[in-house]
């Protein structure tokens, strides 16, 4: 561009954090996305203008700006293009922009060029989320962004984003990660690949529960817009896909695919693992082959836990022990993982003799380090016990009543046979 300094670099939308090349485009965007009346589609010029219009013309009140980030949805604030943005937010944006830029700079120019815009957006979005702790659903969307950005730098990095994202998401939510995580995420969301592998915790469940309503199974997602307006639209997809599709332009979150957006939804479970991987995790498809081989991959992932579990297995005996063992392992292993396993478990009951192996066998389908990502949306839809921590899972042990197939929701209520034993070990 001609000018050296582009008015605080590129114009960005205060409502949704997207960046634009030009203020004119920014204004058009705001008019179309944030200041458009949902009833008559009239485009207003400002937030308050929209609110007044709706009141006068339709006798309806609007409490928040459509398609805006949750913390930016105040309808009273008058923003037009870049004017009216409060100082505080300006500074914050600058900071994030600066923070986000750095990881990008070492990369090759041309790669960054097209990506930079999106990357920046994503980063800023993500970072913001990091700093302003927000609630669950939003976490999903925004944290996704950094991953998108980090995805840009190139293939080798690809794998990290998945872990990074999940970590990032889970961190704030469960406060497990705490600051370091968030900071990491801010500076280099990509990064936590390492961290990801380590921290397998938890909030997978929370995230999962959050995802539950957002999963792409037919019913609930139909009315996406009313249910998750802020969420769905708050993903600042900075730039469209090459062909400029309007439909679903939300960037993919490495760990989770953003399967729903304002106008479209992707028929795919939210976790970004292939359909075959997801399916292979079902215990129904676990085979005797896994039994023998299963040990290995698992062992690499979380040896101590597995080993701990095994003795249990022999103690308890057949299918029950299997379930229990698995559950034990689950507890250990990311809870997300746990859920998956537990879910598949009952189905697995019918499986072969080396119980522990079966449980272990399930893992190979889920490469280590990705466990966090493997929230099974399906799981979420299952009866609540799935979402619960170890206790319930332990309840699973009764292979008998469960029946061989996932069809029988994990009947749960069995006495947690090994639970007491497991508990102390497993957190």
């Amino acid at each position, binding site marked *: 561009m001609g000018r050296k300094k582009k008015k605080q670099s590129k114009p960005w939308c205060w409502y949704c954090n997207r960046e634009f090349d030009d203020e004119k485009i920014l204004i058009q965007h705001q008019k179309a996305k944030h200041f458009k009346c949902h009833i008559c589609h009239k485009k207003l010029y400002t937030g308050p203008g929209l609110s007044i219009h709706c009141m006068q013309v339709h006798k309806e009140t609007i409490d928040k700006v459509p398609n805006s980030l949750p913390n930016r949805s105040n309808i009273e604030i008058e923003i037009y293009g870049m004017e009216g943005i409060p100082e505080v937010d300006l500074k914050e944006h600058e900071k994030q922009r600066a923070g986000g830029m750095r990881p990008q700079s070492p990369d090759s120019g041309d*790669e960054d060029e097209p990506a930079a815009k999106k990357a920046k957006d994503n980063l800023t979005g993500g970072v913001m989320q990091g700093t302003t702790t927000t609630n669950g659903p939003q976490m999903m969307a925004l944290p996704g962004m950094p991953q*998108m950005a980090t*995805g*840009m730098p*190139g*293939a*080798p990095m*690809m*794998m990290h*984003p*998945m872990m990074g994202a999940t970590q990032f998401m889970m961190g704030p939510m469960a406060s497990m990660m705490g600051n370091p995580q968030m900071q990491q995420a801010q500076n280099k969301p990509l990064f936590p690949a390492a961290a990801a592998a380590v921290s397998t915790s938890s909030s997978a469940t929370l995230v999962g529960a959050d995802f539950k309503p957002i*999963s*792409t*199974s*037919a019913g609930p997602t*139909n009315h*996406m*817009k009313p249910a998750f307006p802020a969420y769905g639209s708050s993903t600042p997809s900075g730039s469209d*896909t*090459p*062909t400029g*599709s309007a*439909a*679903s332009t939300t*960037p*993919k979150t*490495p760990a989770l*695919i953003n399967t729903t957006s304002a*106008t*479209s*939804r*992707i*028929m*795919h*479970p939210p976790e970004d*693992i*292939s*359909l*075959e*991987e*997801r*399916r*292979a995790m*079902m215990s129904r*498809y*676990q*085979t*005797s*082959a*896994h039994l023998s*081989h299963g040990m*290995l*991959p698992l062992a690499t992932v979380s040896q101590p836990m597995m080993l701990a579990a095994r003795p249990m297995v022999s103690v308890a005996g057949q299918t029950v022990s299997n379930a229990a063992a698995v559950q034990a392992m689950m507890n250990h292993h990311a809870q997300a993982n746990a859920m998956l396993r537990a879910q598949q478990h009952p189905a697995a009951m019918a499986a072969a003799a080396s119980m522990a192996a079966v449980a272990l066998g399930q893992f*190979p*389908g889920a*490469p280590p380090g990705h466990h966090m990502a493997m929230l*099974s949306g*399906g799981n979420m*839809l299952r009866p609540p016990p799935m979402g619960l921590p170890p206790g319930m899972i332990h309840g699973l042990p009764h292979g008998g009543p469960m029946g061989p*197939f996932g069809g029988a929701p994990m009947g749960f209520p069995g006495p947690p046979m090994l639970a007491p034993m497991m508990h102390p070990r497993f957190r």
Partner: protein
Amino acid sequence: MVHQVHGYLNNKQSAFGSLDVVRWTPKPQIQTDDFFLLLFCVYFENCNMTMFSQSPLGGTSSFVGAAATNTVNPMRDFEVTSPPDDSISSLAFSPPALQQNFLIAGSWDNNVRCWEVEQSGKTIPKSMQSMQGPVLDVCWSDDGTKVFMASCDKQVKCWDLASNQTVQVAQHDAPVKTCHWVKAPSYTCLMTGSWDKTLKFWDTRSQNPMMTIQLPERCYCADVDYPMAVVGTAGRGLIVYQLEGQPQEYKRIESPLKYQHRCVSIFRDKKNSPVGFALGSVEGRVAIQYVAPQNPKDNFTFKCHRSNGTPGGFQDIFAVNDIVFHPVHGTLATVGSDGKFSFWDKDARTKLKTSEAMESPITNCCFNANGQIFAYSVSYDWSKGHEFYSPMKKNYIFLRPCFEDLKPRTKP
């Protein structure tokens, strides 16, 4: 107009390869107007079978609005008999080396089945082999004598069709997602890609791989067309290998797609050498990518397998499950979770045809060696999670004469 009353050949010409395209109309007896739409699928299936195969397999059905609303086989294509009991994961037609067409299908029921496909459209189940886990990929050797089966049991086995014996030829640490036969002037081998993030090349006589290449991520899809090989991995990784001499990585490409890679297929140029590939993602989009484009604009993406969606509301976006290129015309076919298949001309950048929707997603497709038959498998692909899975639901493989449908729009 010739009366084409029976499903297929009013005259004894082959169903595939004749320009007298057969029109399907149900047998006369079926024309009683009993549209018991209720009595559907099972009966439809029977009907179809009787139409397509000369022997009345399912017996006659007295009703059936097969004429009107056939939801199971809306395209009225030939149905393959004795389909697998669980979702189909891979389809492969025999290579040109064989005179007849054999179709191999791998399934989640751990089995690989082989049918002979006759010119009439009739399919005869020939044999079946099993693996210890769901089969994820199958491929033929170039001489058509062996079939390789890659499975979740982390092995790949070679099935010698003549002797009907299998022997293990590859081993990974995680389910093997892809297997492709590589026929190079100086060597032949089997390339296997697995979720253990490695790509291995096997001389089938040896227990150890000839070569192991580390992938950045789990292998999700791959294709081989000597001397080129492409692998799509998790995390949107995309790597092109060159196989001359010995396989080595040629280039890592920044993915043109923003969503998970699902399928990839190499295409050739007019001179019949591989120059690029089509990559499909879970977000209803296919990218056509040349490995060495003369003009960056040669690479493009297009959207597909999306429902129309009302202007104010929703568009459903489905994963592209498989892409194949027509061996003669160079046009391509895609199949998706929406249960439809589409034919496209990438040079003219237009769509040639889209089918009606099947009841279940279409998981795989392939063309036979001479490009006369298009096979596609209809079974659940897990796109809606396990809740929508029903073991009761039937799986189908349909065959369609496709030579005309896939003719390119542009002047070649």
